[in-house]
């Protein structure tokens, strides 16, 4: 089945822009990115859109469809009725470059601020041995395709530009959780307590666990339940729980 859909697509740049109306053909089985490509091919040859794999694995075509952060390539047109107007805008948390393309360098800055994996002493690269049961928690977080939809939807920075300096966002707090749960990470041996650092340096306390990051994740990573809340609990161990603090002091060991 084919029909003519009504699309509104944001066109403009950092100086300004507007939502423009288009009537465009939609066919069975298509996704929003197909329609954007058809617009490029037939009506708006200069429409800027970032995309790559069209398979939900590269994380390039992040945008907002009817106000919801989505991957355009993973948003089926069948979820809309033929009468429905489909509005496509760039992600509204990051500076716009042009049309549907945003400048996501905020995320790269935050990525650089997270201290990397600290190799354990006495074990050369290639000699790491870990049990599957010890690494499977972190492996969930490795599914992240860095589409930055979680960063886009998080109200801490979406609604408060001033918090961008002090808040790393769910993607990079999840990265800290991943490293803190890594069985071979030797950060503690070099004096880095990742959970405390998450609280003090990366703004973990700004997160009020309203779960929007989990809702929009196209990889269905349980960011809040499996990364952010465990990281908060680990920070509580270090900063707010005198019993755990005392126990660690007495036993002087890291479980």
């Amino acid at each position, binding site marked *: 089945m084919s029909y003519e859909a009504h699309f509104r697509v944001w066109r403009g740049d950092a100086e300004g822009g507007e939502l423009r109306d288009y009537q465009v053909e939609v066919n069975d089985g298509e996704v929003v990115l197909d329609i954007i490509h058809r617009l490029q091919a037939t009506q708006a040859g200069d429409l800027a859109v970032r995309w790559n794999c069209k398979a939900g694995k590269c994380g390039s075509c992040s945008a907002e469809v009817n106000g919801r952060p989505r991957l355009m390539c993973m948003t089926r047109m069948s979820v809309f009725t033929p009468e429905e107007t489909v509005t496509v805008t760039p992600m509204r948390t990051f500076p716009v470059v042009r049309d549907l393309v945003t400048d996501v360098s905020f995320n790269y800055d935050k990525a650089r601020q997270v201290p990397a994996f600290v190799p354990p002493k006495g074990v050369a690269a290639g000699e790491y041995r870990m*049990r599957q049961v010890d690494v499977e928690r972190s492996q969930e977080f490795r599914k992240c395709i860095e589409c930055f939809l979680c960063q886009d939807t998080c109200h*801490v920075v979406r609604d408060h530009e001033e918090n961008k300096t002090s808040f790393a966002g769910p993607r990079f707090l999840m990265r800290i959780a991943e490293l803190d749960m890594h069985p071979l990470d030797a950060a503690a041996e070099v004096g880095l307590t990742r959970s405390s650092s998450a609280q003090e340096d990366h703004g973990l306390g700004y997160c009020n*666990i309203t779960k929007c990051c989990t809702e929009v994740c196209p990889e269905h990573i349980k960011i809040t339940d499996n990364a952010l809340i465990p990281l908060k*609990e680990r920070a509580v161990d270090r900063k707010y729980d005198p019993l755990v603090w005392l126990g660690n002091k007495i036993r002087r060991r890291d479980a």
Partner: protein
Amino acid sequence: MATGTTPTPSATPTARRGVLTPGRAAISARHLRTDRWWLPPLVTALGLAAFIGYSTWRAFANSHYYAAPYVSPFYSPCLATNCADMKGGADWALFGDWWGLSPALLVLIFPLGFRLTCYYYRKAYYRGFWASPPACAVAEPHAKYTGETRLPLILQNVHRYFFYLALPVAGILTYDAVLGFRDEHGRWGHMGLGTLVLLVNITLIWAYTLSCHSCRHIMGGKLRHFSAHPVRYRLWGWVGVLNGRHMLLAWSSLISVGLADLYIYLVSSGAFDDPRFF
């Protein structure tokens, strides 16, 4: 530029905040969602408000909370001397006779603190009551946001202590449910609809309590090497299964505790007799 015309940050028009910040896509609407995004926070707020209203009335009422052999979960354990005689129930007058208000107030502080600092309820009331945010990608109305970085919300970090306190409370409510197998004269071998109500309630309360994120962390989440702690790993896995249903358990146990109290109120006030199974 003339003196005094330079805009200061504090004078920045509110319309230029958040998604309207210069440099972002210039879209005047604060959100473009077309679904009924307002429904979940509205239902959440109404549900919580209904429970707060009901439980406040019942907590201050100080009456109709005992219908032998059943005691309302709002009034157990009883820690003051001004309680009804509970015939072997959790009636410990630790606070003596100086306490003149409803004894429920001495007990409800623990489950209240547990639920108030619960990770699920935090999400629920931040969205439902404080609109922070009202829904995903819907702009919140607040000019400033510091989250849980400072007082009072930094106190949410005490959640695990309320979890510790919730355990004995759940234990006492279990004891109350077991006492439901005695009749009004204290003889064992009885079961009524009230017994069933208390059993369902305590099952849901235990499930909610054990599905807590702090419990999951304490059981094993804090470990880095599950392989060295197989028992705790298994406990962590079990709690994780419950934890996946934390929202469902939070609501079902909230409703069940309210209904258990209502049932005992109705039996105690003589609205109907407790149907007896044996």
